[in-house]
């Protein structure tokens, strides 16, 4: 009984809180630009509207066009359930679950790319090609970050990895993970979520032809992914797992809010990078995580 309650609460938190983040980001961007901007709950209204609408499917597409977003959403939600929430732990935890998390994110990426290519359009092809290519470098950065956490805590289970803070290399790890967050969630400077020019889109290009409930699944999944990365970043840097539950909840919420506002500020203040510079920035993220790994290495055993 306790387990089921825990599971329901956890699901509620992830499902219901996730769409808040893009709203906060848009509000921050509007405030910096001197506008009032859309309401913070805008994504909720959009999801509700999309859920009621019909679907227009390309004549070239097979059922994979709809199955893709479904599988992607399930993968992202499962990854979210694996992510520990401070002392509350995660729904499932075992040695090596960090790898399952990383590969679930890869599964989501694959499904999005597959559904995109179903339409037989050049835009989607372009977006998918860019997305899967840059993912090579972000995977390297993520593995380096994970390795630094593993070396620091001598454990391969997410709960134990994220419980203490990252120690001396926390700042480096934070910078690296923040850059990875921006890359994986298609934010400026890697991708502009507001652009619809074919030469500049990555994620937007992949979802160009989707509509109705599948689009709702994709957008919701993207917000879950953003929340996931924010929670990961906060827990990697701060020793949330070792605080009392109330303090942990507060610090976690505050941390996620800070990260979200940070993303909003970055989106407002930076311009999108030219595509040929993107690998450079991703390599920088990888190197930051690598240096965090070296600091954790030198930091002595635990």
């Amino acid at each position, binding site marked *: 009984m306790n387990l089921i309650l825990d599971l329901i609460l956890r699901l509620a938190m992830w499902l219901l809180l996730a769409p808040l983040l893009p709203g906060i980001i848009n509000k921050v961007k509007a405030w910096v630009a001197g506008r009032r901007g859309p309401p913070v709950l805008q994504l909720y209204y959009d999801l509700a509207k999309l859920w*009621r609408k*019909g*679907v*227009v*499917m*390309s*004549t*070239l*597409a*097979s059922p*994979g066009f*709809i*199955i893709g977003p479904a*599988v992607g*959403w*399930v*993968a992202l939600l*499962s990854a979210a359930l694996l992510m520990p929430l401070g002392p509350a732990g995660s729904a*499932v935890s*075992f*040695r*090596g679950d960090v790898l*399952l998390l*990383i*590969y*679930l994110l*890869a*599964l989501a*990426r*694959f499904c999005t790319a*597959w559904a995109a*290519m179903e*339409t*037989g*359009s*050049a835009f989607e*092809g*372009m977006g*998918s*090609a860019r997305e*899967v*290519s840059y*993912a*090579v*470098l972000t*995977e*390297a950065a993520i*593995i*380096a970050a994970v*390795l630094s956490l*593993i*070396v620091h805590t001598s*454990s*391969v289970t997410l709960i134990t990895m994220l419980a203490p803070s990252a120690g001396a290399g926390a700042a480096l790890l934070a910078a690296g993970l923040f850059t990875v967050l921006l890359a994986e969630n298609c934010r400026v400077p890697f991708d502009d979520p507001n652009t619809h020019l*074919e030469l500049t889109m990555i994620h937007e290009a992949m979802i160009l*032809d989707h509509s*109705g409930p599948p689009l709702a*699944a994709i957008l919701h999944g993207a917000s879950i992914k953003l929340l996931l990365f924010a929670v990961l970043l906060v827990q990697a840097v701060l020793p949330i797992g070792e605080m009392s539950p109330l303090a942990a909840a507060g610090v976690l919420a505050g941390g996620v809010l800070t990260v979200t506002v940070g993303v909003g500020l970055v989106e407002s203040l930076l311009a999108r990078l030219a595509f040929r510079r993107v*690998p450079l920035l991703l390599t920088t993220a990888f190197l930051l995580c690598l240096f965090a790994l070296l600091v954790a*290495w030198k930091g002595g055993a635990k």
Partner: protein
Amino acid sequence: MTLGLPLFISFLALALSVAVGYRRPRTWLALTVTGTVAGLVAAVYVLLSGDRWEWQSDFLLGGEALRLRLDGLSALFLLLVAVVGGAGAVYSHEYWSDEHNPASAPRGRVWWSSLLLSMGLVLTVANGLHFLIAWELFALCGYFLITLDRRRSGVRAAGWLYLVASHAGTMCLFAFFGLLAAHTGSWELGPLRERGELAPLFWLALIGFGLKAGFFPLHIWLPSAHANAPSHVSAIMSGVAIKMGVYGILRFSGWLPVPAAAGWVVVSLGAVSALLGIAFAFAQNDFKRLLAYCSVENIGIIMIGVGIALLAVSHDDAPWGRLALAGALLHVWNHGAFKSLLFFGAGSVLHATGTRELSRLGGLARNMPWTAGLFALGILAVAGLPPLNGFVSEWLIYLGLFDVATGKGALAWIAMPAAVMLAMAGAIALASFAKAGAMIFLGAPRTQPAARAHECGYWMRGPMLGLAAVCGIIGLAPVLFWPAISEAVACWRPVWGLGEPPAPLAMLGSAQVTLAIIILAAAVWLWRKSRDNGLRRGLTWDCAYAVPTARMQYTSASFAGIVAGWFRWLMLPERTVHRPHGYFPASAIRLERVPETVLERVLAPVGNLVMHASHTALRLQHGRLQFYILYVVAGLIGIGLLVLWGGAQ
């Protein structure tokens, strides 16, 4: 004798199938399937019971009595041979049938059974001399299978390259077995771990078996051979034959002592093979070549696991060695299953459209739903995505690498780069297969043959379904297979012994099952909801482009363009560009070809240099008698001078 019976039945059935294969396809199929099933039964029995089967003949073969031995490690590979061999036999019944290929189909059946027999022999002989005989037979059967369609020059060239590379490896193996026999005094093979002076022989075995396994840079024959062979042959070559090289390396690193640097070298080679192999795969525009290069990557992954295990042996039998080796052995099975599935799917596409070029395909999912679905499943497996089997074996190897890293010793300096390279290789693999799947099955057909494609028949679908089921079962219930893997690991290093899974395989298995169930439920639910809301079909919106054509879709070279650009220094692509001229350009051409770098940019120039030098030396061979006698006299005078000079000192 209980174990001897299925093995004897298997041998008899396969031998009979060689005899009848030429004229009777159905009898051949029945006999081959019987033979492989019997072999499967024997292998499963050995793996589950831990028994070992030995047999010695009364007659002498080449001066030595024929001794056969089936233990855990051999049984693991024998099982793979049986499964893929049987599946391929059924597949070839329709794919390479007598109606379509009257000249080569009869030969193909005979050589297929011979290949299965020779692989079984390689796995069971316990004598160095007979191992070499069986190895050579196995290589020859492979050659004849690859060159079944001898009329095409590409096939002949591929077969020739395969033969040359195979014999280069066999030459190293001759040296290896000869030196081994010289040092130990007999041709018998068995555990000899206490003889420390035999350690340097490992390098010979690594090169000899490595040329068959196909890791970088010994992979030069693999892409052309596997791309040009008939698809069921590519499946067994990629799925099983290259694992014979892995078997050789494992077998002799288990029985003989290895040098201290062995683990380091194997892990490095594995990591480099994994990353560079899949980078090459991504840049290919021929889907069978893509699959072949992907095999190089997967052999690299297996080598990483084997290397970690070798390192563990020299570092007080650390527990992470067992993890890594288990991952490598499971990956042997997994790769055999999903690569064969992918090659069967590729064969189905080739059978339907007649072309291997990705830029001539497209939109096949409509006419070939079964092939598309099963190929998609194979793609999920090869990219190592949950909830399928590829993820499980990569997970085990990653855990081994992570455990080495937590140890923070000198070994972590190789484990961490290997982990990063493995992650990058995984991401590139995902990209390559997204490309392959999308170019073949999604979108609109780019050419007429693609538009007219038809689905394959039941004989081709059945093996694909079987292999897909294998992928699914291993992915969803890996704990079931742990005893077998553990038996093979214990056979390799008896000190490690059997035991509980060192990793939470059970939890992973249940997580994958849950994931699979939820995925199915979500997919059905979303489809239902979309249909209830109203599903309308229309032209792809494509940002309101009015007249889209199939040629406007992204091509495979463009898809791979970004990553191929990063690896340009290695791939050295050849480019032919004719830019469009004028206001209404009539034509523009851009051709890009990625050569096999090690073969065409390293070995070929060296070969040309040797030929050039030989041609220069050819001038000495003019046929004039007087000069030949002059050479003799010069030689004699030279010897005389040497003797004088030696005598004077």
